C-alpha cells in the first residue's frame, strides 16, 4: 500500500507484482513450518540482501523500517519464556525463578526461534510491500488472475480515500479539541473518541463514496462486461527468472542447513 511503498526503478520495482507475491507466499508458507532458529536467521539475512541489492532500498531507510519489526520480535523474546507451557520445557535446566514464575533453558530456546520466525515472516513480506505499487498489484490481479474488475477498481477507488480520511480524522480531532472535549484516558477514552469520530467520518465517507460512484458510472464503468487496459500486465523473462531463481536458491539454502543438521523439525503446530 501507499504507506509502505517506496518508489523506485530497481529490478524488484520493475517485476510483475504477482511474481513477487508468489515468491513471498511460497517462502512465507515454508517459514511457518520451521521450528529452528537458523532457517529464519538465514532467510532474514538473505531478504535484507535482496532488498538492498535488487531493490536498491537505502540502508538507513531499511533500518528504520526493520527497527519496529525487530522490536516486536524482541517483545516476543521477553514474554515467551514466561508464557510457554511449563510441561514442555520443565525437563530442561531451570535458569531463574521468582515466585511462581520459572524460566527454563528450553523456554529460552523456544523463544529465540519463535522471535526469529516472526521477524522472518515480517521481513519476507518486505520485497513485495516495499517495491509494489498497490494499483499495479490490483491491475495485475484483475488482468492476470481474473479478479472481477468491478471488485478490483472498487478497492482502488477506496485506496484514494485513505489520505482523505486521514486528513479528515486530524481535522475532526482539532475541531473537538477546540470545543473543549477532553477524552478520558485509557480504553474508555478511546471508545468515546471512536464513537464521536464515527458519525462525522461515516457521513463524510458515504457522501464521498456516492459521488465517486456517480463519476465512475458517468464514465461508463461497469457498463460493458469487459474492459481493455492501457497498461497490460504480464510476466516477462525477468519475472520467471526471479521466481525460479528465488525458489531454487531457497531450496539450496534449506538443503545446506539440513546437511549441517541445523534445520529442525518441520511442523505447523509445533508444541502440541
Amino acid at each position: 500500500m501507499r504507506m509502505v511503498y517506496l518508489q523506485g526503478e530497481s529490478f524488484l520495482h520493475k517485476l510483475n507484482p504477482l511474481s513477487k507475491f508468489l515468491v513471498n507466499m511460497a517462502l512465507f508458507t515454508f517459514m511457518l513450518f520451521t521450528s529452528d532458529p537458523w532457517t529464519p536467521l538465514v532467510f532474514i539475512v538473505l531478504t535484507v540482501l535482496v532488498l538492498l541489492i535488487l531493490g536498491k532500498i537505502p540502508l538507513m531507510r531499511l533500518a528504520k523500517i526493520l527497527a519496529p519489526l525487530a522490536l516486536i520480535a524482541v517483545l516476543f523474546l521477553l514474554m515467551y519464556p514466561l508464557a510457554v507451557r511449563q510441561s514442555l520445557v520443565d525437563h530442561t535446566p531451570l535458569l531463574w525463578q521468582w515466585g511462581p514464575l520459572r524460566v527454563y533453558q528450553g523456554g529460552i530456546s523456544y523463544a529465540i526461534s519463535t522471535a526469529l520466525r516472526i521477524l522472518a515472516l515480517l521481513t519476507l513480506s518486505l520485497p513485495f510491500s516495499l517495491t509494489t505499487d498497490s494499483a499495479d498489484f490490483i491491475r495485475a490481479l484483475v488482468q492476470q488472475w481474473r479478479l472481477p474488475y468491478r471488485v478490483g477498481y472498487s478497492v482502488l477507488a477506496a485506496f484514494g480515500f485513505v489520505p482523505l480520511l486521514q486528513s479528515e480524522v486530524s481535522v475532526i480531532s482539532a475541531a473537538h479539541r477546540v470545543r473543549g472535549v477532553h477524552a478520558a484516558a485509557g480504553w474508555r477514552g478511546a471508545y468515546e473518541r471512536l464513537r464521536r469520530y464515527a458519525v462525522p467520518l461515516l457521513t463524510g465517507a458515504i457522501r464521498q463514496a456516492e459521488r465517486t460512484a456517480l463519476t465512475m458510472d458517468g464514465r461508463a464503468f461497469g457498463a460493458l462486461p469487459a474492459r481493455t487496459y492501457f497498461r497490460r500486465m504480464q510476466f516477462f523473462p525477468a519475472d520467471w527468472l526471479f521466481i525460479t531463481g528465488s525458489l531454487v536458491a531457497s531450496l539450496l539454502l534449506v538443503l545446506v542447513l539440513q546437511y549441517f543438521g541445523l534445520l529442525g523439525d518441520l511442523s505447523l503446530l509445533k508444541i502440541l
Partner: protein
Amino acid sequence: MIDVSALTIKYTGRKRPILRDLSLQVPQGQTLLILGASGSGKSSLALTFNGLIPHSIGEVLGGQVRVAGADTQQTSVAQLAQRVGILFQDPDAQFATLTVEDEIVFGLENLCLDPAQMEARLETALSQVGMLHARHRPVYALSGGEKQRIALAALLAMQPEVLVFDEPTANLDSVGTQQVFALLAQLKARGQHTLILIEHKLDELMHLVDRVLVLDSEGQIFADGAPREIFDRYAAELQEMGVWTPQVCMLAQELRLAGHVLPSFPVTIGEAVKVLAPLLAAHPAQSASSAPPTNASPRSSVYSIRDLSFHYGDIPALHNVSMEISQGDFLAIVGPNGAGKSTLARHLIGLLDPPAGTVFLSERDIHALEPRRLAEQVAYVFQNPEHQFVTERVEDEVAYGLRVAGLDEALVAEQSRQLLDTFGLARYARANPFTLSHGEKRRLSVAAMLAVGQQTLILDEPTFGQDERNAAALMALLRALNAQGKTIIMITHDMRLVAEAADKVAVILEGRLEFFGQPAALFAQEDLLARAHLNLPPLARLAALMATQYPHMQGWSTLQDYQTLTQMVRV
C-alpha cells in the same frame, strides 16, 4: 442536441418529485446557464443528460430525455458517456484511480477502446487542460484546481459533445477557480461542445453564456431566455428566490430604481463600462460623500501577533508575521490554499502552540494562557460544521460549551434555549445535528461555538460549499454579531465577502503577511492581487476599469460605493 420533454423525476424514498413536467431544448453549440436555489433540481437535471438518472439513481416518472436523438432511458450508459460528460463540484470525489494517467484512460478502458488509440487521446486531453507535464503524478498530490483540470481531461478523452459543469469551482480557491474558468473560455472558443453550466460566480462567466434557464423550488422552469432578458425582467423575483444574479445586473437595477435611463441592460462588466461611461460623463466627479469612518476612540487590542514564524517539520509555513487585531474588527484573511492562512488561525486558538512572546490575546501571552481561558474568549468555527458536532441533539450541542464552562444546569437550559431562539433553531432542539440542512448545520456550529459569550469569533471558510442563500444569511448573522462589538476573523476565498463585510483584510502569501489594511486599499494593488491570484470582486473590477478616466471611482467595490452614482439624479 438535448431534448427534454415533459420530464418528471424523483429520487427513491422521497415523496416529492425533484423535477416536474419539464421541457427544454438545447441546440448544439449553445452555452446554457442553469440557475435555481439549492434543491431546485439543477444537478438532477444535469444527471438526466448522461443517463445517470435513471440508470444509476432516481427514477423517471414521466417524459423523456433525448441526447442527439437517443432516448437516455433506452440507451446504455456506455454510449451516453461518449456524448455527455459531467464535471462535478467536489475535486476529491471524482477519482477512480490513483494517478493522472490511469484516471484519463479509465473511461477509455471502460469503453473497451483499443489501447493503441488511448495514447493519442490521453495526450490530447492532457494538453487541452495544460497538464501534460503531470501525466505520471499521483492524484492526491495535485491542488484542487489541478484535480478539476484532470477530471475535465478525463471527460474530454471520451470526446463528449456535451459538457456539464456542475459548480466546478465551489470548492476551489481563487487560483483553482481562475484555472477552471480559463478552461471554460477555451472550450467555448473552440466551439466544439454544447456547454451546460451550473455556477454562482456569475460575473466571471456571463460573457460566455448564450442562454439562462431558471428553475423554481417546485422543479419547474421559472424563466428561460437570453441573459439580458432574464436579469432585466426578473431581477427582483430572482433575488427573492435566492437565485444569484450578476452584480453588474444588481447595479443596473439600482441605477434604474434611482431614475437613470440606461441605453441597454448590462450583464457583463464590459457592457457595464459602456453603460456607465455616459452617466459619469454627464455628471462630473463629485467628491466622495462618505469619507472613510475614522476611528476616533482607540479600541482595545484583541490579538497582537509579533514576529510569528512556524515550520511543519522542515517545511516553512509562516515567516515573521506581525499584526494587530483590535476589538470590533471584521478581519478577512485571504490568500491561496497552502499559503499559511489556517496555520496562522490555528496559532490564535491554541491548536498550534505559539512560542512565548509571539501571540498575545488581550495583552496576555497565549503561550502562558490555559486552554480553557482561551476557549472562553475565542470561538473557532471549522469549515465543515459536521466536524464540530460532539453530541446527538441540537440542544445538547449548544449546551455543551456551557457545561464545559461549568455553569449549573438551570442556567445551561435557559441560555441554550435563548441561543437556539436567536439562531432560529429552536424547533430542532431535539433533532440530531446531522439531520439538519446545510445552512442550519452552519448556524448551529456558530451558535454552539458562541455559547459562552466569546467576544472573538474565528471562522475558516464559513461559506465554502454553501449555496448563495445560506451564505448571505450567514454573512448577515456575522455582521450583526460584529455590530454588537464582537471581533470577527474570517479566512475566505470569496473576495466579494471581503468587499462587502470586512473592514480589514490580511493577505498571506507563501507564509508572509503581504498586506494588512482596508479592502479598498488592497483592491488598488494590482501587482499584489495578481501575485496572490486574488480576483477583484466584480464591482471593484468595474470601478478599476473606469478609474483611469474617473479617478474618484478608485476603490469602489460594493453597491454602496456606487451610491453617489445612484443618487446623482435625485440630487
